[in-house]
């Protein structure tokens, strides 16, 4: 296990070497402590990871509150912390549209799937679909849905990580990508779900504390009145009052609805989130964890809103943070980071930077574990070995897959350097909403669903989401340089999800002879009662 200590030693001197101010030293110190603690956890977890239950589901021993924090940690990525506060800084109200969409998926997850997931499944959401559908077929689809979602999400996170760390710590892009990639491989392959969960919990607490402190410092100057804060912000912002109501983000109703659909139902189909519901002991804890997660996430989005408006007040016209063209140094995504410096000086900037780095690390680890489980369990054991594989081999394949995914993330992170990858998060959500969510939802609620319906319909949903993004304005026009988009909307969610549901239902109805009502009844019974 010397590798853990070796790595920590490596990070300390290099990050302080690369830094030139006290904030960077402090950030490196805080981040160094975070890495040290999480590697220690990984070291202890690695001694326990001899069985599947520990590796995939932390032995089912995570409490409701802990899991709520871990889920919130998985969901509050650097993209939502820096991205949404940056969007609010840039355009005010429009930033709120994203936060609401990201949040509203949560009550739906709690009401419709959280408990049933725990009662029906063991380690991956494909366990749930295969309680009534034919394993080998449906797991190909679930594994594909998981991997596509995970890989696009990973690329977006890695590219964001590289450029963010470059700005925050002054490290070269490649170096940052390698640090993130290697640490994530170590957490996931040695520490499994136990380490990944604790990394997530620690990071969630740090992020909530940091964001709270930032918001309190902003509100403190406006006697804790949102009204006064908004008034001052609209006086300062070049677009004045118009930042307080809908702006350019939503240009037409169809796009608005389509974005909303992808955000809500995509959340309910994100594999790394769904996986967390298996780490608790029973359905009641699963319910409670979804409640805590919703509370933390909701609170966090209100904070990012306050932080964004605070940034308008404290950073606009402040030459310390603007480049000669009057843009924020290092892009709008740096709004929260600069604000921490403006309000709390070098030390607080260091703290927030370290938290942002820890956030990226934790989120990519969660994603990698979900992807590795899809390969090791769904694909290797049930598709290739037809369910006949021993536990040791299954874990070994999952661990190798996590290394493999880590390397893919590093390579893709380097390939996509400097590209606009924001659409990839949207794509991940669209695929999750058009593949994972429909099959999961129909598995637990529709008695006429058949394996063929779910599999072919699910693949149609998957490919239509990919195709619509490819032919849409972001890839076809902005990336490939064609003049007009073949698919006119930026967000394909509404269309690809409808196509998916429609195909699954039609194919299942045609495939009447393979209907299995008995298995559906057993599933229904099991989904409402504890599985012990």
């Amino acid at each position, binding site marked *: 296990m010397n590798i853990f200590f070796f790595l920590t030693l490596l990070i300390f001197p290099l990050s302080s070497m690369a830094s030139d101010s006290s904030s960077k030293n402090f950030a490196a110190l805080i981040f160094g402590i975070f890495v040290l603690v999480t590697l220690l956890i990984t070291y202890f977890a690695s001694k326990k990871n001899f069985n599947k239950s520990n590796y995939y589901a932390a032995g089912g021993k995570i409490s409701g509150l802990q899991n709520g924090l871990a889920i919130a940690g998985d969901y509050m990525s650097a993209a939502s912390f820096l991205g949404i506060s940056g969007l609010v800084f840039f355009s005010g*109200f429009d930033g709120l549209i994203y936060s609401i969409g990201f949040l509203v998926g949560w009550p739906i997850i709690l*009401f419709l799937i959280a408990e049933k997931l725990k009662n029906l499944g063991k380690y991956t959401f494909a366990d749930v679909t295969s309680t009534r559908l034919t394993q080998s077929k449906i797991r190909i689809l679930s594994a594909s849905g998981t991997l596509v979602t995970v890989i696009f999400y990973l690329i977006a996170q890695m590219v964001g990580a590289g450029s963010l760390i470059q700005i925050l710590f002054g490290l070269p892009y490649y170096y940052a990508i390698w640090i993130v990639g290697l640490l994530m491989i170590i957490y996931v392959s040695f520490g499994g779900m136990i380490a990944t969960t604790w990394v997530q919990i620690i990071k969630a607490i740090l992020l909530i504390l940091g964001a709270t402190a930032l918001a309190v410092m902003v509100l403190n100057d406006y006697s804790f009145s949102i009204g006064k804060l908004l008034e001052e912000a609209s006086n300062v912002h070049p677009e004045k009052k118009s930042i*307080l109501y809908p702006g350019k983000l939503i240009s037409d109703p169809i796009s608005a609805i389509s974005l*909303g659909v992808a955000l*809500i139902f995509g959340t309910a189909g994100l594999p790394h989130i769904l996986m967390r519901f298996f780490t608790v002991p029973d359905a009641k804890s699963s319910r409670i964890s979804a*409640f805590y997660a919703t509370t933390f996430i*909701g*609170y966090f989005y209100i904070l990012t809103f306050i932080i964004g408006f605070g940034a308008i007040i404290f950073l606009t016209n402040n030459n310390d943070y603007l480049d000669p063209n009057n843009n924020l140094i290092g892009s709008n995504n740096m709004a929260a980071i600069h604000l921490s410096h403006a309000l709390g000086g070098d030390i607080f900037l260091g703290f927030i930077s370290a938290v942002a780095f820890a956030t990226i690390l934790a989120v990519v680890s969660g994603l990698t574990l979900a992807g590795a489980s899809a390969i090791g369990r769904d694909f290797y054991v049930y598709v290739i070995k037809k369910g006949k594989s021993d536990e040791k081999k299954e874990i070994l394949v999952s661990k190798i897959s996590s290394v493999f995914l880590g390397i893919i993330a590093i390579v893709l992170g380097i390939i996509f350097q400097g590209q606009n990858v924001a659409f990839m998060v949207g794509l991940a959500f669209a695929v999750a909403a058009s593949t994972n969510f429909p099959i999961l939802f129909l598995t637990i609620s529709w*008695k006429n669903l058949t394996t063929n319906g779910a599999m072919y319909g699910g693949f149609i949903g998957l490919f239509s989401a990919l195709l619509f993004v490819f032919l849409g304005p972001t890839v076809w026009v902005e990336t490939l340089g064609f003049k007009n988009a073949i698919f006119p909307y930026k967000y394909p969610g509404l269309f690809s999800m409808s196509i998916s549901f429609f195909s699954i239902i039609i194919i299942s109805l045609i495939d009447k002879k393979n209907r299995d009502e008995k298995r559906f009844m057993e599933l229904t019974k099991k989904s409402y009662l504890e599985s012990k």
Partner: protein
Amino acid sequence: MNKKINDNNLEKLIFYSNLISYLLSFIVLILYFSFILILGFKPELFHKTLPNSSITYGIFSGLFIIIISVFLTFIYVVLSNLFLDKLKK
């Protein structure tokens, strides 16, 4: 829901938990999509401000949806813990 499950309690459990789950989901979706539809079709509705404040209807309803979502998950947990869990026995 299904006649072949003879257990009375189970039928009751399924009925009430579906009722609660779908009703609450429906409320959340209605609130959210009304917000989205106003954004899409009549964004000017969100321009007005609350009396004596800089808070616009848009910002108010946005923050309201976040808070009500958290509140509804709380309601769901209370109903499940106090009522539905008893039917499971």
